[in-house]
């Protein structure tokens, strides 16, 4: 049964009722005082700095990688040659997310899947192959380690290789993500350390970077992973800041580094840029305003360089369709536009073949080209915060801020962000929204071009999907056996024992022991075994 869409019944994804037009009086009184502020100044919603993209274009930053480390290296070089301005190392999810080596029974049973979602990197030797010739010193590098339990290994391996190549760790810039939304909400793995242990690892990384690596973004909270799992824009914002205070409170409790350093470290976040352009742009503006407010109110931090949030965005993978995939080039462009209008610092555009596979070379190139067209041809970069002062966008920004703080408070009432993951409360919220989204499509309330409407397609261009290489498993198994045979066994054993001891102690930072273990060529699966032994498994609160 199809329903006629009523002209006066339109709400945003966050459930904000939209008026047909806006005037000045719609802007809430409190926010009206902010409208005339300059970018780079409190309350920050207007952008990171006055000259914006004129002096610092956003970073073109694409998820990339598959197969053997050398396949990934080649793809990253391809992207850099095509104009990417940072690089991301994806690790094979079968092994990395679980901290399994390829000879683990769960992986052996799926050997053909190995390498399909990132390169297999089980030891520092693999990471060295992947990083060969990459611009570690001049570019912003993403070491991988998106899943919490994998991050310490991925980071330690990257840093060890960088160090061996002669780079000063105090000078290199990059991130590793280590995201709770991905790990415990969006992409739940077969085995994962509990959230409490995850918090400890992330705080260790923040602390370590605070002391040793001032230019590194130690963890990057990814609203994206909440949003693409079903959280609405206000929930994406509210949960992201609820997550951030878990980290900052922990660091404050430890009192081992200045809280400002931790706040700066946590202030590099990522969001999903979805298709409702003005709401998404307003979301980025709201995020900056909220971060400034949070740091000032809760931690008394007001220094603009810290209180001004830095945002990476990825366009919504789930909005990309399997049907008529070339339409996704348009969707990618529009979603990228929403991010740019929102003033983000870094952007990845999902491939037009996203619903079929990981990106082919051509899809990857298109994602870069979309961004280059936006940067070079449209003059979008000329004026900072072009939506500033719009009655509509300012109102939407203010309403999003209010709704997001409400969701943040709801999370606190549930015992905080970690408690909401452990209880499944956040999962239920996400699932309800996801169901609502699907029902809207099913009922015809929301159209999806090429899928629920306009289904005819005369394109002669067949998108087949990209299946990577077929030797990733065999090569990884060989290399695993080789590294175990060739490494200095007693050092490896000693380092692994030390790591175990540190994991079991509660107040020693894990990263120095992890760096030693990685340098001694201890492998990913061995580290995973230590974690599982020391921390146990997370009790997944929902049925999968």
């Amino acid at each position: 049964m199809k329903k006629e869409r009523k002209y006066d019944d339109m709400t945003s994804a966050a459930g904000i009722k939209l008026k047909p037009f806006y005037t000045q009086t719609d802007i809430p009184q409190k926010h009206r005082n902010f409208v005339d502020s300059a970018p780079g100044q409190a309350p920050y919603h207007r952008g990171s700095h006055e000259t914006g993209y004129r002096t610092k274009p956003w970073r073109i930053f694409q998820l990339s990688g598959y197969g053997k480390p050398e396949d990934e290296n080649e793809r990253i070089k391809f992207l850099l040659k095509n104009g990417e301005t940072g690089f991301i190392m994806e690790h094979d999810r079968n092994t990395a997310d679980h901290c399994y080596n390829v000879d683990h029974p769960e992986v052996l049973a799926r050997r053909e899947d190995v390498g399909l979602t990132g390169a297999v990197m089980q030891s520092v030797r693999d990471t060295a192959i992947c990083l060969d010739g990459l611009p570690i010193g001049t570019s912003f590098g993403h070491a991988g380690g998106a899943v919490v339990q994998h991050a310490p290994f991925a980071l330690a391996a990257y840093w060890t290789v960088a160090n061996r190549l002669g780079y000063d760790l105090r000078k290199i810039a990059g991130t590793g993500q280590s995201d709770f939304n991905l790990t415990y909400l969006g992409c739940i793995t077969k085995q994962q350390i509990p959230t409490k242990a995850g918090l400890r690892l992330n705080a260790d990384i923040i602390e370590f970077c605070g002391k040793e690596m001032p230019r590194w973004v130690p963890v990057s909270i990814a609203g994206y992973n909440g949003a693409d799992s079903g959280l609405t824009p206000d929930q994406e914002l509210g949960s992201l800041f609820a997550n951030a205070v878990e980290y900052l409170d922990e660091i404050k409790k430890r009192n081992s580094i200045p809280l400002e350093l931790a706040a700066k470290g946590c202030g590099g976040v990522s969001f999903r840029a979805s298709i409702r352009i003005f709401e998404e742009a307003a979301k980025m503006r709201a995020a900056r305003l909220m971060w400034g407010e949070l740091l000032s109110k809760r931690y008394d931090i007001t220094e603009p360089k810290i209180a001004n949030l830095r945002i990476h965005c990825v366009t919504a993978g789930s909005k990309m369709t399997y049907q008529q995939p070339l339409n996704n080039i348009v969707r990618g462009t529009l979603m990228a536009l929403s991010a740019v209008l929102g003033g983000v610092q870094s952007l990845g555009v999902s491939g037009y073949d996203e619903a079929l596979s990981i990106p082919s070379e051509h899809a990857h190139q298109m994602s870069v080209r979309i961004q280059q067209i936006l940067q070079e041809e449209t003059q979008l970069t000329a004026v900072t915060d072009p939506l500033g002062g719009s009655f509509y966008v300012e109102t939407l920004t203010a309403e999003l801020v209010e709704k997001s703080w409400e969701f943040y408070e709801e999370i606190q009432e549930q015992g905080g962000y970690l408690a909401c993951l452990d209880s499944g409360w956040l999962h239920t919220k996400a699932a309800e929204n996801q169901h609502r989204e699907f029902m809207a499509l099913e009922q015809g309330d929301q159209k999806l071009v090429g899928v629920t409407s306009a289904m005819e397609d005369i394109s002669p261009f067949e998108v087949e999907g990209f299946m990577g290489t077929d030797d990733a498993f065999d090569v990884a198994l060989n290399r695993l056996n080789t590294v175990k045979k060739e490494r200095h066994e007693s050092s490896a054993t000693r380092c692994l024992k030390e790591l175990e001891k540190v994991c079991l102690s509660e107040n020693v930072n894990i990263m120095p022991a992890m760096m030693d273990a990685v340098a001694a060529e201890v492998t990913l699966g061995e580290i995973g075994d230590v974690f599982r032994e020391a921390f146990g498994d997370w009790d997944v609160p929902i049925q999968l």
Partner: protein
Amino acid sequence: MFLEKLLAIGMFPYNSEASNTMEQKRILMAKTGLDGHWRGPTIVARALRDAGYEVIMIGMATGEEILRACVDEDVDLVGLNIGGHINVALRAIEAIKKERQSVPIFAGGTITPASARELNALGVEVYPPGSSLTDIVEAADRLTQRKQA
């Protein structure tokens, strides 16, 4: 809850009133890969449950585990969520065809057109991203030959 509201106003195509009068069939759902994209399988599982099916979710499972659950749970249909390579699915399909020939199988996920054709040739229906939930429930009805109780 939104679903209950939909049911109350009778908008839902497979509402529980209808499903109460249907015989109860059992569907096993499994994810063949180790990468945790759950959006598709959880939404499909919910649609099938709402349509009156008993859905047994076993999460990430190997070909062998899928066969074992299929036998132990005595299901009427198997749903496989596949992300990328179809080899684990092929092992499950082969094993089920051998041990439980009468149990039909359907699949969803990020499956390339070429792999979908391969699965189709084995008699496995494929529902890629963008498939309608109504179509998926109808397929389950057809494959399990579900009738009015």
